[in-house]
């Protein structure tokens, strides 16, 4: 019990005390600010705070999360684009949200070229989920129903203008079918409406559907991804189940980026720290229990993904307006 009290005290010390600065004047010399474009407690914020806690060991400095939430991420992304380039201000970016905001709205004060990607941390695909009591056993049954009466089958997801809606539009385009899309205030409420029988199906993120599937309340019919999800190894990808290639651009990525203009030395130091944390067994074990869907991409791979996604998005953006 004394140990618990010690742990508690240590944990509290973690918030109250400022990080101790090592004697050597080497970057980073002081805590680094991590701008998060969403409010405290959300999925992005939780991911950011988790990574921040574990990267401390590899960076030698604390990462201080600063929430700049609002306008679907626009405020935080804009803040990151204009942040100091001294290496002490970096941020979490969400793909494809950062591109959707840019392409769907006018006068958005950032360009994708304002960001220098450091590493991708998470990849959370969109899944097709139905109530466990649903008559639809497979994805093709659901698609047949939609094709029989286009625009009549209710499908709900986070939205509007979300990555989930983007994924639906991409799928409708590839599969030549039409659903009646209903926007909800997040994946959670869309799942609730599926459990309550209001929707034929919903398109939540894999991570938010996971616990409901484990509890036997939801059934996942397909995963929008190039390969099967480790969360649902028995569930086919949508492309597999439908027999048609459906691009998975709706998948939500969360990664670290710095404002363009950060020095190469600082960037390399950050890249190394995040590469190390993504191989840290403690972090991996924690992510596993917490259900965080990790997917490491180094700076080059992340940048390439961003450019590909940007191009792919252009094709569908008019369908979302």
């Amino acid at each position, binding site marked *: 019990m004394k140990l618990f009290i010690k742990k*508690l005290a240590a944990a509290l010390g973690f918030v109250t005390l400022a990080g101790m600065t090592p004697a050597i004047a080497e970057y980073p010399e002081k805590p680094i600010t991590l701008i998060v474009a969403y409010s405290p407690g959300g999925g992005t914020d939780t991911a950011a705070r988790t990574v921040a806690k574990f990267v401390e060991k590899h960076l030698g400095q604390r990462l201080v999360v600063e929430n700049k939430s609002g306008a679907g991420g626009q405020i935080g992304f804009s803040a990151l684009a204009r942040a100091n380039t001294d290496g002490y201000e970096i941020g979490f970016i969400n793909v494809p949200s950062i591109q959707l905001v840019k392409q769907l709205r006018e006068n958005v004060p950032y360009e994708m070229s304002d960001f220098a990607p450091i590493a991708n941390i998470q990849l959370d695909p969109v899944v097709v989920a139905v109530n466990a009591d649903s008559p639809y056993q497979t994805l093709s049954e659901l698609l047949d129903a939609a094709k029989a009466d286009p625009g009549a089958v209710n499908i709900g997801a986070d939205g509007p203008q979300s990555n989930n809606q983007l994924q639906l539009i991409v799928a409708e385009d590839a599969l030549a079918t039409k659903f009646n899309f209903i*926007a909800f205030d997040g994946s959670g409420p869309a799942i609730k409406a599926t459990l309550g029988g209001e929707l034929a199906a919903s398109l939540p993120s894999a991570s938010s559907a996971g*616990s409901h599937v484990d509890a036997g309340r939801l059934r996942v019919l397909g995963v929008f991804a190039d390969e099967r999800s480790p969360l649902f190894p028995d569930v086919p990808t949508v492309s597999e189940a439908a027999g048609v290639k459906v691009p998975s651009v709706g998948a939500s990525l969360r990664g670290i980026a710095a404002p363009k203009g950060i020095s190469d030395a600082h960037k390399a130091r950050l890249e190394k720290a995040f590469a190390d944390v993504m191989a840290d067994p403690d972090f991996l074990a924690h992510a596993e229990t917490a259900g965080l869907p990790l997917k490491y991409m180094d700076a080059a791979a992340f940048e390439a993904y961003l450019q590909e996604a940007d191009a792919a998005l252009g094709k569908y953006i008019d369908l979302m307006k």
Partner: protein
Amino acid sequence: MFENMLLGLQALADPALLLAVLIGVVGGVIIGALPGLTSTMGVALLIPVTFSLPPQVGLAMLGGIYCASTYSGAISAILLNIPGTSASVATMLDGHPMAKNGEPGRAISLATFASCFGGLVSIVALLFLAPQLAEFSLRFGSPEYFLLAVFGITVIASMSAGAMEKGLIAGALGLILSTVGTHPLTGTMRFTGGVPTLFDGIPLVVSLIGLYSIPEVIDLIDRAKSTHTGAAGVDKTSPFATLRELARQKFNLFRSSLIGIIVGIIPGVGCSVGGFLAYDAAKKGSNNPEKFGNGAAEGLVASETGNNAVTGGTLIPLLTLGIPGNPVTAVLLGGIMIHGLRPGPELFTTNADVTYGFIFSLFLSNLLFVPVGLLLARYGLRIVQVPAGILAPLILSLAVIGAYSLRSSVDDIWIMLAIGALGWGMAALAVPRAPLVLGLVLGTLAEGELARSLALVRGDLGAFGMQLVTRPVALVILILCVSAIIHGIIQHRRDSKMLE
């Protein structure tokens, strides 16, 4: 089941858990009492701290913050006429008049014990009825949400004592303000003028700060200039004397708890609505409805019991179905998942020690905020005697800091000041402000759910109308709405006749 509960009780013997509850409660009382600091923020900031703690200890700390902060908004509502959280807006309607009449001590004690009662009853419901009540929460679809929001809006009649027309104007103003921002279904921007800060709408907490603190500051400055000292008396009511008073309000306490629990188990509605609906029911059921708004103990007790009963209610769909009812429980869900726990039946069997340990710790949190709150209030009471020249700048700085800290946004300070100017105008014209808050809280819900209900039936108005009368839960709320409106009209006619 009882064996599992015993496992949970054992967790209470852990001194680390007791310490965690104490830290959570003290922190929660402070967070709740300061306008602008929200329980969501408190819980979110502590989650990384709880990583390294055993799950039940970490959850106990988060639970302590949640229960205590929902209560302690009443302290600033009563003493300063500024709600610490949106949950305490209805508390203020009678709590502040009572304090002004020289009984701040009595008001705080009543609020404290009523909150404790409501919180405890809701945890009992969580302990014994969680699975059954969770099923009920799933029967709430979009049509039911829409009707519930409409019913909530009818409460405006109760909020606008004797000034129905002014109340309706304030309520309509709130509804209009709630339309600012992105349309919940289509994503169309409305009245934002291209300012990104307004894309998510006018933030509720920021408006609350402006609406109540700015007029208070101006009023204080006014009083400081006049020769009138304005220092109200402070009563020496013993907290325990109010317990006897509460015992006479048994029916009110149980009715308000029940309303709070029901509001709690419906995801997405929230603590403030629990307080408003309980206040409304108390006023309609009271023999002295004319005293409401002038320091009626019944109103204060109803609101505080109701809003704290929401806390246990929101945990029911959270723990059994993994569906969070409000932003705080959404953050709590993250805190639960991060320990590898998954909401659902297995939480009450396989992880019974953690789950029941958490539930029992909530009893403790609800009991513990009584001494902590009363102790804080004992010193806080003197705030009503602080000279206006000191108090006014203090409140103004707190308001500015509170508005800024929510989203680290300077724009929010301007929004707060603009809403403050509106609030001052309303106060000067004796227009009640609570209906505006109600409109702002429920406008988005009513609009979004109406649009969603219609989208679900592909715009078929006939089909939507049929749903309202054929779905049992919807029909019950529809009847409540109609009777509330008729009651309001009759009441208004009676009041106007009396005036003639």
